[in-house]
C-alpha cells in the first residue's frame, strides 16, 4: 500500500535548484533510507514532505490526500520530524521537551492522558529517569533519543529523520537505528531517514533512495542500489562492496574525482 506518493517534486531557492522532478512511491511500514552526497537534496526532500518548505511544483500525497490541502496541524498529526539536533535558547526539561510532541493533539489543557503518553514513551526508550534533567546538559546520544521520543508521542504513521546518527558514537548509532527499526516492525510506522552512513542504511533499510544533485539516481533494495558503479557515479569514490552475515558493507577506497560539488 502506498503511504507517501511524491510526483514531479521541484524545489529551489532564487539562484539554485535543489530538487528536480523527484518522483517516488513509499510503501506503508517500510524503512527507507535516503543517501547521497552533501547538498544532494536529502534534507530538503524531508522538509518538503513535512511542509516546513513549500515545493515550487509537483504533488505530494499522504494516504491519498494532497499535502497542499492539509493544514499544518493536520500534517503534524500524520508526520513526525526528528531534526538532526536542536539547539535552544532557554533550558527546558526533558519532560517538557517531549510533551511538546503532544501539541498537535491538544488545545490549551494538557490532560493526564498526554502526560501518561510521555511517561510511556520515555519508559520504552529507557530514559524515564532523565525526565527532569535539562535537555542541554545531556549528551548528543541522549538528546537524539529525546528528539525521537518527542516524535513518538506525536503518534504519527510516518516518521522523518534528518541524519539522526551523524553526531553519535557507534553504540548510539545502532541504538537509534534499532529504535526506528522496531517502530517500523511493531507499529507499522513508515520511516524515512536521511543518512550518510551507507553501512547503517544497508543494514537496516528495506529500501534505499540514492540522490545526487536533486534527483533520485537509484532506488530499491540495498543490494541493487549500493553497487560499486552507483557509488562511483554518485560520490566519485572507488568502493569495495562485500557481504558479511547477509548484510552489504561498503568500504570506501579512494577518491576518483577532484570535486563532486555541482
Amino acid at each position: 500500500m502506498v503511504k507517501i506518493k511524491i510526483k514531479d517534486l521541484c524545489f529551489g531557492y532564487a539562484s539554485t535548484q535543489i530538487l528536480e522532478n523527484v518522483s517516488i512511491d513509499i510503501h506503508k511500514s517500510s524503512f527507507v533510507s535516503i543517501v547521497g552526497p552533501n547538498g544532494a537534496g536529502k534534507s530538503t526532500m524531508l522538509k518538503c514532505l513535512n511542509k516546513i518548505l513549500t515545493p515550487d511544483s509537483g504533488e505530494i500525497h499522504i494516504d491519498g490526500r494532497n499535502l497542499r490541502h492539509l493544514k499544518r496541524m493536520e500534517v503534524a498529526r500524520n508526520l513526525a520530524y526528528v531534526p538532526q539536533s536542536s539547539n535552544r535558547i532557554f533550558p527546558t526539561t526533558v519532560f517538557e521537551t517531549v510533551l511538546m510532541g503532544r501539541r498537535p493533539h491538544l488545545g490549551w489543557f494538557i490532560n493526564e492522558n498526554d502526560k501518561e503518553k510521555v511517561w510511556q514513551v520515555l519508559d520504552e526508550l529507557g530514559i524515564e529517569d532523565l525526565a527532569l534533567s535539562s535537555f542541554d546538559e545531556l549528551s548528543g546520544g541522549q538528546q537524539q533519543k529525546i528528539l525521537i521520543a518527542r516524535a513518538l508521542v506525536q503518534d504519527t504513521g510516518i516518521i522523518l529523520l534528518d541524519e539522526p546518527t551523524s553526531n553519535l558514537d557507534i553504540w548510539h548509532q545502532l541504538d537509534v537505528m534499532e529504535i526506528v527499526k522496531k517502530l517500523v516492525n511493531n507499529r507499522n510506522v513508515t520511516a524515512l531517514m536521511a543518512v550518510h552512513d551507507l553501512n547503517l542504511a544497508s543494514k537496516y533499510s528495506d529500501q534505499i533512495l540514492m540522490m545526487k544533485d536533486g534527483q533520485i539516481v537509484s532506488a530499491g533494495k540495498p543490494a541493487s542500489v549500493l553497487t560499486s558503479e552507483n557509488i562511483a557515479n554518485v560520490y566519485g569514490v572507488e568502493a569495495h562492496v562485500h557481504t558479511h552475515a547477509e548484510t552489504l558493507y561498503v568500504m570506501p577506497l579512494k577518491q576518483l574525482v577532484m570535486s563532486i560539488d555541482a
Partner: protein
Amino acid sequence: MLYWFSGFLPPYPLLSRTAVKIMQNPFKKQSDSHKPDDTGGSGGTDNSQVREDYQRHVGRKLLFLSYMLLLVTLFAAFIVTIGPLDISVPDVYKILLAKILPISVEGLPTQIVWNIRMPRIVAGIMAGFGLGICGCVMQAVLKNPLASPFTLGISSGANFGVAIAAVLGLGVIGGPYMVIGNAFLFAMLCALFIIALANFKGATSETLILAGIAMNYLFGSLSDLFRYFATDEQLRVMISWGMGDLSAFTWNNFLLLLVIFVFCTPLLYLKANDLNIMTIGDENAKSLGIDTNRVRMSSMLLASLLVATIVCFTGTIAFIGLVAPHMARMMVGSDHKYLFPAAGILGALLLISADATGLYILGSTIIPTGIMTSLIGVPFFMYLILKRKRKEFW
C-alpha cells in the same frame, strides 16, 4: 527573602542515576519495548520515583506562584500605609473599607489614600505585571534572551512621541491626553516596524534586536535634540516621563488600562503551549503544527499593544520587561504555563517595592520609579546570576 527564593530553583540532579541505568541493559530494555502492556509491569520503584519527583517539581512551581501572589498582596497592603504624610495604619484601612462598607470617612487623608496612594499601587502592579509578561512573550517568539520592550525600541519611540508633544505641542489628539496619545502612537509605530521586519523580511531575531537598538539610538538622539531646544517647563515634562513615573496615573486612566489589560493578557496566556514550542526554532515548531509566522505576529501585536498602553501612562521603565522573565525562568523554569504568570507577578512585585522605596527612602523627596527599579532590581538580578550554578543563566 533571597535565601528563601533559592529553594524554588528547578532541580537537575538526576543525571548519574540514568547513566548507570542505560549502561546496564539497553538491549533488554529495547527487546521488550513497544508492547502495549509494557508500562505497568516494568514500572518498579525507580520509575515511580521519577514520577513523584515530577509531581513535586510541578507542585513546587504552583506553590512558588501562590507565595509570590501573597507577597504582592502583603507588599501592597503595606505600601498603602506609607507615604510623606503620616496617616495611621488603622485610618488607612478604614478609608479603604469605606469604599465597600457603610463607614463614613472624609477629609485630606481620604483624598491621599484613595486618589494618590491607591492609583499608584494599582498602576505599579498592572504595569509591572504587563511589562513582565510582554518581555516574556517577546523573548519566546523572537527566541532571544535580549528581547524586551526597551531593547526593541518601543520605549524610546514613546519617549520621542512625548518630546514632540512637549516641545512642538503637536499630537494626534489634543488636550490633556496629547502626551499620552503621542507616546502610544510612537510606541506602536516602533513595534509595527519590528513586527514587519520579522514577518515580511524574515529577519532573524539578532537582526531585530540590532534594529531595535538602532531605533533606540535614533529616537534617543531625536529626543536629545528636542531637549536641547526645550524650555525649562518642557524639559521637566520630558525628564519626568523619561525616568518613568507612576504618580501621573489617576483613576481616570484606570479603565482604559484595565480594558487593554483584560483583552491582551488572557489572549497571550492562551498561547502558552505555542510559546514553549516557539523557543525551539521555527523548523521544529512548524513540524509540530505551529504556524510560526502567525503566532509571532499575533503575540507581538498583542504584547506591543499592552506595552504601548502601559508605557504611555507610566513612562520608560526599562528594567522590568527585560529582567523579570529571566528571574522568573530561574525560579520556575521555561514552561510558559508557569513562566508567564511568574514573570508578571515578579514584575509587579519588583515595580511596587522599588516604587515604595523611592517614595520613602529620602523622606520628602520622591525618587522617580524608573530609577529605583534599576537601583533595586539590578543588584537582585546580579545576585541570582552569581548564585546560579549554570554558566548561562537563561
